[in-house]
């Protein structure tokens, strides 16, 4: 004899039944889609009618709807108890339904019957009748089948069982477990499943994901965002799985979680950023103390390869968008050409080499805050080469001439840019007393064109439509229009090595409400 697990379950009407009670109990696990359960329900009902005065007849059913169906279909008076969470079925290690457990008033197991064997059930009825002194149930045993094997318990379904096991062990993991056969190559398997951006992934084993989750204090099951286009629930655990695959360290996780939250806002509009045929991609800029702690590169080659934090943090965000959000090339990701930023694009600002206000302070945060800013960019980094200019006005002039090409030289007021100024170029500006405001103003100045030069013509049809321009007088056509609708559309950061008079620029996508607005978020866990 062994002690059966105690439980408290409610029926559909909210009446609760507990085990053990003060009387013997007969516990019978059933599920509605099992033919054997349906065959024996009238027998269970007869047991209830016969023995309810002396025995607790407890019938846990495994689905809410199924319990209702059973009750209705068999006109039951015996309450079916709601074990749709399957916790009691799991605690009893029920493999097959129906399974019957006879217990004494202290909860000790006396007898277990699995499936339906007529002789066994009949003998059980006789035993109960004798011990309770109540009449035998009204069952026409000859009309019952001799035996029926029963069906697999829902609690033993491999996918459900993994979750129940994790819950019983207090594991924070709830994601579906995928067993890769010993003869399969796990790297090939992950490619086959479409989890990858085209490069190999680190297999997200439960051990690695648990280690990754150690990087945050947040609950693994917290839903941090609803991610388009699938509107998939981005839990901390799911983001951690993608971070493992991308090759991240646990300490990167808080930054990645904040980035996921940032792109899943209406302002950022990740759905549009992924879906656009123009081919936009998130560009992540990190500011604050977290740069040093994570070892983010902001110096030599900051926008390139070779640094783990830069490479894998950007990749983790992209993989999360791909796998949780479901944005995949050819599906809802429709970029005509694509661009390499779609693999990863994350770097830090070299604030210490920036004589002006760093990006995050400009965007309303404290200097000591760690902040992630995310832009939707369609191309870049394009190089702005100027080894000759010695004045701030000349160099900012160069920037303007180069930035004129964003989208199209005749496309004004169309987009935004993220300018990455290299240290040598910073020095040129500083020598001439140029700050961010004067750089922006100069860019607007040198890119200003009379509207008449921005009208569609025989060289290119891009620009103001001729019909529109025909309605303007000469004075209106002479009006100067700078490249950017607002100086705020020129974002400026400092990064790169000490050597080289080369700055860079990312060109934006549809800017503002109609497209994407850059989002900056403080990384709270640092």
């Amino acid at each position, binding site marked *: 004899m062994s002690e059966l697990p105690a439980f408290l379950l409610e029926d559909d009407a909210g009446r609760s039944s507990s085990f053990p009670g003060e009387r013997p109990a007969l516990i019978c696990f059933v599920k509605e889609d099992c033919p054997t359960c349906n065959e024996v329900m009238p027998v269970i009902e007869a047991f209830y009618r016969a023995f309810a005065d002396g025995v607790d007849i407890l019938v846990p059913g495994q689905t809410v709807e199924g319990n209702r169906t059973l009750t209705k279909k068999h006109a039951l008076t015996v309450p079916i108890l709601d074990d749709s969470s399957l916790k009691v079925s799991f605690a009893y290690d029920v*493999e*097959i339904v129906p399974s019957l457990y006879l217990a004494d008033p202290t909860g000790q197991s006396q007898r277990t019957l699995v*499936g339906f064997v007529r002789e066994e059930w009949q003998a059980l009825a006789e035993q109960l009748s004798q011990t309770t002194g109540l009449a035998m149930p009204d069952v026409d045993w000859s009309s019952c089948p001799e*035996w029926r*094997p029963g069906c*697999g*318990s829902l609690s*033993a379904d*491999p996918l459900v*069982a993994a979750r129940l096991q994790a819950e019983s062990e207090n594991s924070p*993991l709830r*994601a*579906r*477990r*995928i*067993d*890769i*056969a*010993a*003869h*399969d190559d*796990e790297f090939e*398997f*992950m490619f*086959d*499943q479409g*989890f990858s951006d085209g490069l190999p992934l680190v*297999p*997200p*084993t*439960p051990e690695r*994901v648990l280690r990754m989750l150690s990087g945050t204090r947040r609950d693994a099951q917290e839903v941090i965002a609803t*991610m388009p286009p*699938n509107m*998939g*629930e981005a839990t901390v*655990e*799911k983001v951690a*799985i*993608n971070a493992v*695959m991308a090759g991240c360290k646990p300490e990167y996780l808080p930054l990645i979680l904040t980035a996921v939250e940032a792109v899943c806002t209406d302002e950022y509009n990740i759905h549009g950023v992924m879906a656009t045929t123009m081919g936009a991609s998130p560009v992540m800029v990190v500011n604050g103390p977290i740069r040093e702690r994570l070892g983010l590169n902001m110096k030599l080659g900051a926008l390139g390869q070779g640094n783990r934090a830069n490479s894998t943090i950007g990749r983790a965000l992209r*993989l999360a968008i791909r*796998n*949780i*959000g*479901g944005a995949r090339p050819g599906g809802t990701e429709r970029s005509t050409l694509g661009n390499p930023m779609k693999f990863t694009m994350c770097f830090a600002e070299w604030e210490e080499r920036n004589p002006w206000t760093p990006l995050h302070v400009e965007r309303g945060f404290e200097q000591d805050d760690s902040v992630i800013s995310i832009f939707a960019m369609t191309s870049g980094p394009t190089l702005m080469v100027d080894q000759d200019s010695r004045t701030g006005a000349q160099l900012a002039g160069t920037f303007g001439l180069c930035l004129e090409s964003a989208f199209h030289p005749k496309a004004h007021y169309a987009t935004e840019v993220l300018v990455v100024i290299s240290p040598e170029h910073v020095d040129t500006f500083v020598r001439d007393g140029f700050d961010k405001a004067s750089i922006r103003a100069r860019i607007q100045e040198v890119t200003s064109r009379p509207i008449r030069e921005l009208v569609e013509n025989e060289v290119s049809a891009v620009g103001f439509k001729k019909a529109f321009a025909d309605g303007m007088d000469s004075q209106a056509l002479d009006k100067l229009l700078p490249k950017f609708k607002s100086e705020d559309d020129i974002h400026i950061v400092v990064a790169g090595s000490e050597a080289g008079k080369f700055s860079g620029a990312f060109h934006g996508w549809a800017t503002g409400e109609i497209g994407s607005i850059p989002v900056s978020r403080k990384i709270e866990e640092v």
Partner: protein
Amino acid sequence: MVTILDPTDERVPVERQVTPRVGEITGNVALLDISKPRGSVLLDRLEALLTERMPGINVTRYAKPTFAKPAPDALRAEISAENDFIIEGLAD
């Protein structure tokens, strides 16, 4: 065997890769009984028919401990190592 956690939102079932079909049965054939009562009746008949019609093949019988759970790794490895084909009696 490696176990990984699903990185997706789990709305699509994991797709298993189907082994290429060769078109004829030769060598060693496993008959796997999932241990559902009377599954053996079907497999007995199948074994008799296979042996009668394909005298060149070797048939070996295997059984899972319970139909309610996946086959243990050791059993899967054993079947895979010793056989070219497997016929599994699924459910009822």
